[in-house]
């Protein structure tokens, strides 16, 4: 087990390094030198050159990357070209927003998705078809469209929830929950539909297994066959689906944050891409990769724990 974890941690580290290099090369391909971006239009060439020199822009790429990496491992992701704020501090304040958004949406998706998927598989018949149609529709609806409709219904027509904005948990837990409600529900529509499909398919596959017949032949009550044995068998792909959703929602928060004006990572990446703020983009890419890689690592551990075949080996 220890060996397994060590190996996986090394893999994860390698992934993050590869992405960091990739991100570094990508932002270097961005139009405009740091000096030009930072000083804006109308700056003199001398001033631009001076800033570039100071930021090490003229050093070899190799040196630049390792300089960046050296400070990154110490938690310093550099400063923004636009307003000179510390990128690490900025992202640290944004991470909780996106994390609560993605986590909330994942939990809601999982609850809705597993509920609908299990119901469809277990009840069958007309209900299965109705749920199938409903879920098919939800998968096809773009989240940004759904979000706007929610704003219209819940914030404009009836002001149940605030339309935009984010209130930190420390300020007011109640307002925090209210401000998260609409974005979370918006993201959970598509996510829930995805998990519902995965759950239904996995449950049906579990129920096709021959050991289900053995369980019936030994008079196992139906509820136990469904919710202990079949669901246990189906749990692996369902858990994988949930992890995939979290990863997707973490990225998907870009749209929810834009739509609901939330100061999260997604908003940061969107702004810094628009303003060609290279170090900021690079920082977000690396942070997002670390989160995604960590979730994948957790998924792998969960899989190993859930599957007796993997657990034994």
């Amino acid at each position, binding site marked *: 087990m220890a060996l397994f974890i060590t190996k996986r941690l090394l893999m994860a580290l390698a992934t993050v390094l590869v992405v960091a290099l990739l991100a570094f090369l990508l932002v270097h391909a961005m139009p405009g030198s740091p000096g030009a971006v930072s000083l804006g239009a109308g700056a003199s060439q001398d001033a631009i050159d001076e800033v570039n020199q100071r930021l090490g822009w003229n050093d070899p790429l190799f040196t630049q990357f390792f300089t960046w990496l050296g400070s990154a491992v110490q938690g310093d992701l550099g400063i923004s070209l636009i307003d000179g704020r510390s990128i690490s501090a900025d992202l640290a304040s944004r991470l909780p927003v996106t994390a609560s958004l993605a986590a909330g949406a994942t939990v809601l998706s999982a609850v809705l998705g597993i509920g609908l998927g299990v119901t469809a598989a277990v009840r*069958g018949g007309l209900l299965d078809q109705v749920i199938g149609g409903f879920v098919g529709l939800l998968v096809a609806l773009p989240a940004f469209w759904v979000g706007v409709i929610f704003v219209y219904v819940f914030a404009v027509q009836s002001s149940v929830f605030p339309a935009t904005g984010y209130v930190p948990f420390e300020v007011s837990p109640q307002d925090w929950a209210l401000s998260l409600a609409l974005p979370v529900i918006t993201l959970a529509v598509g996510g829930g539909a995805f998990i519902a499909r995965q759950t239904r398919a996995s449950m049906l596959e579990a129920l096709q297994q021959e*050991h289900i017949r053995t369980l019936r032949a030994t008079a196992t009550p139906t509820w136990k066959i469904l919710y202990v044995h079949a669901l246990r068998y189906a749990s692996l792909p369902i858990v994988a689906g949930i992890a995939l959703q979290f990863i997707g929602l973490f990225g998907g928060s870009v749209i929810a944050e834009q739509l609901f004006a939330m100061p999260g990572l997604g908003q940061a990446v969107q702004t810094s891409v628009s303003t060609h703020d290279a170090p900021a983009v690079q920082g977000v890419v690396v942070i997002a990769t670390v989160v995604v890689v960590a979730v994948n690592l957790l998924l792998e551990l969960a899989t190993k724990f859930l599957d007796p075949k993997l657990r034994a080996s």
Partner: protein
Amino acid sequence: MIPTVAPAPADADQAGSTTPAAAPARSAGKAGLTKFSRHRLLTSPGAVAGLVWLAAIVTASLTAPLWLPFKTEDQDFTAVLSGPTAAHWLGTDELGRDILSRIFAAAAGTLGTSMLTVIVGVGLGTILAMLAAGTGERTEAVISRVTEIMMSLPGTVIILAVIGAVGTNIPVVMAILGILMSAGIYRVILGQAKSLQSQLYVDAAKVDGVSPLRISLRHVLPGLANTIVVQAALIFAVGMLIQAGLAFIGFGPPIPQPSWGGMIQGASQHVYDAPWMMVPTGAVLALTVLSANAIGNALGKAPNAAAPHLPSAAARRQRAKAVAAIAAAPVSEAQAARNGASHDAASEGTLSVRSLSVGVDNGVRLVTDVSFDVEQGTVLGLVGESGCGKTMTALSLLGLLPSGVSVSGGQILWNGRNLAAATEKDMEGIRGRDIALISQEPMRALDPMFTVGYQLTAAIRRLRGMGKSEARTEARNLLEKVGIVDAQRILKTYPHQISGGMAQRVAIALALSGQPRLLVADEPTTALDVTVQAEILSLLRALVKDTGMSVVMVTHDLGVVADICDQVAVMYAGQVVENGNTAAILDNPRHPYTLALLAADPHANDADNMPERLATIQGQVPQPKDWPTGCRFAARCQFAGSACTDPVPLLASGAGEGLVRCVKADQLAVEGMDWLATDVPAARLLPVSPATSQHTAVIEKDLA
């Protein structure tokens, strides 16, 4: 939201790649190895509607310049933010631009660039998968590792960083999106490509010196066609959603060029004063995505998905209705008389099956008019080739017929009580306690997620009402009883950690946990090694002797019959064609099918006079829908004649209490005919004399 960079699972087929039990998942994957099916596409209403919509929108967008009522930038200041009007069918936006015109002007670009993602993603994924499957494990390991890393990237953020570098050059961005998505497609296709590579005909081609490239293109690629189309459709949908999402957050085509995402973004600014604007573009985008998904899902559906072993609630309700109908059906007088007889004689532990019919719910009959008796402490063999209805008959005894199959007539009398008319609740009281089951593949009969000990103790506690520790002890006793030496250790193992023979012993112990009086054994030795087969058979023989339980043994092996069965019922095409006690039937078979089975069995022939050629039975068991009204074996029978086209009743065979379903049985017996190894010239076929027919009529009367 930008959707996850991995297509949703269309069906159990694809979800299989992550399931715990690798073996069943692989078999499910094989079921997906079907050629591209136009039929499946055209029989799904959703897919047809999707095709029509896609065709319409592509045509409309390509011909847009010819028919669009307005130019995309025409501004009509008299109708700003208007709803649908005669002039503007879908209304106008904040600058008075016609929404209909803008939707279709944007369509070509949206569809085209999404197609670019499909081509790059599916193309790259397929090539990588074929490369990995075709060139050995080293390459596969490398490619798989790389795709693993690609899949653990935050796709959306990377795409945004790409936009930062290349700007909003949509074709380039969508092509890079395709590269990112190719990893997921590779994973889906790899399994199938590997399975195709391991086909025997591919091996043969390799031996013939066909180049790997040619093999990939000629033998592997065609087999992947369906999956590729499915993936393409799903990726197309994802591509459109992502592209619209990017445009929505401001990374769409440069303004003023219209895009669906950009139009929805514009509309969202006016959701307060002109909510209608959200509708047309959203609907067109959703419908297009829905269409692509519908096509992908229709094609991706596993063709012969196995029926669930626990039917859905809806299916169970339907079955309960059918059972109620059977229970309510009047029992014919003759049957009632026979029931009465068997009821009187009903000692504990007697099974009497009367005129049992089992059918698919669509009307196809799988088992017709099957009758047999099993006395306490005896073993009945149900023999026949595959597809003769043996397993269906056996499963009906426990009420465990697969979903969509049910008892359509007749009675299953257990101690005089009709199980065919019993409710599911009643059957739960019978299963395990009175009648138990062991099945063909012990590995698959045990739950892979729970230990042997858990499964056994749970069953013992449930069926015998024991406490936890008592059940634990009993579990160990049972394992020892079925010949497992280190029971304590086996209790802690998972099914995948023990051998097939060991698993079958565990399965038998599980079946014994409720101290049943009848054991239904569905080919319990077929999947096992020959030496293990003998061990399991002698275990069963010992159990029958010790416990006094009876056994219904389904088998196609006459050796098993000779070894363990007291009585035999030979089944052919859903009917019993001959029954009687084992010795009589093996020594003196009366039905041509029994004759043929014996002649075809190497063990049934003496070593001294072993024929040079073993006999064969021409042809195959007919499909249930092709059963003739006359003798169902006639088409394959060496002795068939004109009389065989009439329905044949079961007649006393003359040998003991046996019955035989052949109009020529007596004649064959008298003339001592054998089933011949070679094809029989027509001249040797017996003419059917009228006398025989008369004879049958008499016996029929006797039976009635």
